């Protein structure tokens, strides 16, 4: 389906939404008669008007302008990943077997979602205070029951009073055990459905950033951090507020140094080349990375980017994941990620094509830079940043991404990595335990 059928797509989307032409025209700020002409493909539409219509329909402008087939093609090309698949073969698959093409894309999305859920749950198993407390309570209950039952079953000459106390103890502990098991079951059920309450200040802040799409239009427009914080009721604890404020202040500082409009225009001119942007604006590369990642919003035509910034001790300062590339919250990430090698070659940028265990390909541009000014005799602290570019976004970017990248097979975190014979593996692997378990 080509771009001249854009009106047909708008009409289908409007009908799916269940609104009249007049209603949609009102929402998008167009006249009903003009919308009617657009819907019948008698008038073209692009730019601001297309974006207004897409907003009103709550779908992406690309889906309207390029159609679902283009989106599906891009998705299948991303699944093919390393470019080994013949592009005409993918197009033929979509054209001849659209249902199967759609199923393949849906399975891939499902796989990514599951991988992300698994990473979140693994992260929680290790660090969630609720789980730690509840499991501790369960073990205490079981201990009391086992010890008391052991006494009752092996000792014959127990005084009747003491015997009654032991029986009462078993009754109390089994009731507590039942409550704890129910609470645990409910919690895990909610966690799988993504509804669990945020467990830590870091998790609260992560959700806050996700809710805003990692971009704060209000700060870009010159509003203060206080104003943004004032509207953020979800930041309900002092530690979460402190963490969020630090991130927002740095965002505001970036927005002041590299104003959105000028930065976006320059980024478009150089096809989002971070090196060209640094030559133009100066400053540190990790600031350029942060501004590039902040362009990821519906209102702008920009590539979908992820970003990780870490301190030399491994603590994450900014986690902006991609669906294809989960970023563990509490460390324990794959040590093969180039961001960690960057610390051994500060100020040396590397471009790496990362292959995930499921074959997904993501480009990573990494480098470490010093923090603050150098002082004679003083230790220098470093931060490393890794800009993540999914294969599908890379296709639209400039020559800077075609510089021969290194290739590396990586995972997310050892605990859920299916790769075998990895020299860098450490700790327990839950997948291995599941797959190796006797049947």
């Amino acid at each position: 389906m080509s771009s001249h059928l854009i009106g047909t797509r708008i009409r289908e989307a409007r009908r799916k939404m269940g609104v009249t032409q007049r209603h949609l025209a009102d929402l998008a700020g167009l006249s009903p008669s003009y919308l009617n002409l657009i819907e019948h493909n008698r008038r073209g539409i692009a730019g601001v008007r297309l974006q207004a219509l897409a907003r009103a329909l709550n779908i992406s402008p690309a889906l309207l302008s390029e159609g679902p087939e283009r989106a599906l093609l891009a998705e299948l090309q991303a699944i093919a990943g390393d470019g080994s698949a013949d592009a005409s073969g993918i197009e033929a698959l979509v054209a001849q077997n659209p249902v199967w093409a759609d199923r393949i894309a849906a399975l891939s999305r499902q796989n990514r979602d599951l991988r992300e859920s698994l990473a979140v749950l693994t992260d929680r198993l290790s660090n969630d205070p609720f789980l730690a407390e509840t499991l501790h309570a369960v073990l205490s209950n079981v201990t009391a029951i086992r010890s008391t039952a052991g006494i009752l079953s092996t000792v014959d000459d127990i005084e009747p009073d003491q015997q009654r106390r032991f029986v009462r103890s078993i009754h109390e502990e089994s009731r507590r055990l039942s409550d704890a098991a129910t609470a645990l079951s409910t919690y895990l059920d909610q966690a799988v459905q993504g509804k669990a309450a945020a467990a830590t200040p870091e998790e609260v802040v992560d959700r806050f950033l996700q809710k805003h799409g990692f971009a704060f239009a209000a700060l870009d427009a010159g509003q203060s951090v206080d104003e943004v914080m004032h509207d953020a009721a979800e930041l309900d604890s002092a530690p979460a507020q402190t963490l969020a404020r630090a991130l927002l202040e740095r965002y505001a500082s970036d927005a002041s140094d590299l104003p959105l409009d000028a930065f976006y225009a320059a980024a478009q001119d150089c096809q989002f080349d971070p090196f060209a942007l640094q030559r133009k604006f100066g400053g540190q590369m990790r600031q350029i990375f942060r501004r590039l990642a902040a362009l990821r919003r519906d209102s702008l035509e920009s590539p979908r980017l992820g970003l990780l910034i870490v301190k030399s001790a491994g603590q994450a300062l900014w986690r902006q994941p991609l669906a294809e590339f989960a970023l563990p919250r509490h460390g324990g990430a794959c040590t093969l990620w180039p961001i960690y090698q960057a610390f051994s070659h500060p100020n040396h940028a590397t471009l790496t094509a990362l292959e995930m265990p499921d074959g997904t390909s993501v480009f990573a541009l990494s480098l470490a830079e010093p923090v603050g000014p150098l002082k004679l005799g003083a230790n220098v602290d470093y931060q490393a940043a890794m800009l993540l570019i999914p294969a599908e976004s890379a296709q639209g970017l400039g020559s800077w991404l075609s510089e021969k990248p290194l290739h590396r097979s990586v995972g997310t975190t050892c605990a859920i990595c299916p790769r075998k014979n990895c020299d860098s593996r450490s700790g327990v692997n839950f997948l291995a335990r599941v797959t190796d378990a006797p049947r």
Partner: protein
Amino acid sequence: MTKSVLIIEDEPNIVESLTFLLERAGFVVGSEGDGENALARIADMKPDVVILDVMLPNKSGFDILRDLRLRGQTCPKVLMLTAKGQTRDQQMAEEIGVDVFMTKPFANAEVVARVRRLVLE
């Protein structure tokens, strides 16, 4: 001479079963449920063996053991009994100077046997 054991544990039902088992084995047994009072109780009772939980109200078992060993005391012997059975917890306890590290849930006979062995050392 009768040997004594102090159980520092905040779960009363676990304290009751341990007390029963150890008294039947011939020990004099005391208990304390608050981490903050533990050191004073040890100084007062002077037990031969302390059974020490890790997660206690007001002061953790690790902190109690650290304070005890910082005073240069190798007595009493300490058996750490905890639901936190991860390797790093055991390593930490051993670095601080624990004599025996056991995880919950425990087997009754094993706890009694370990305490007997500690008083004989």
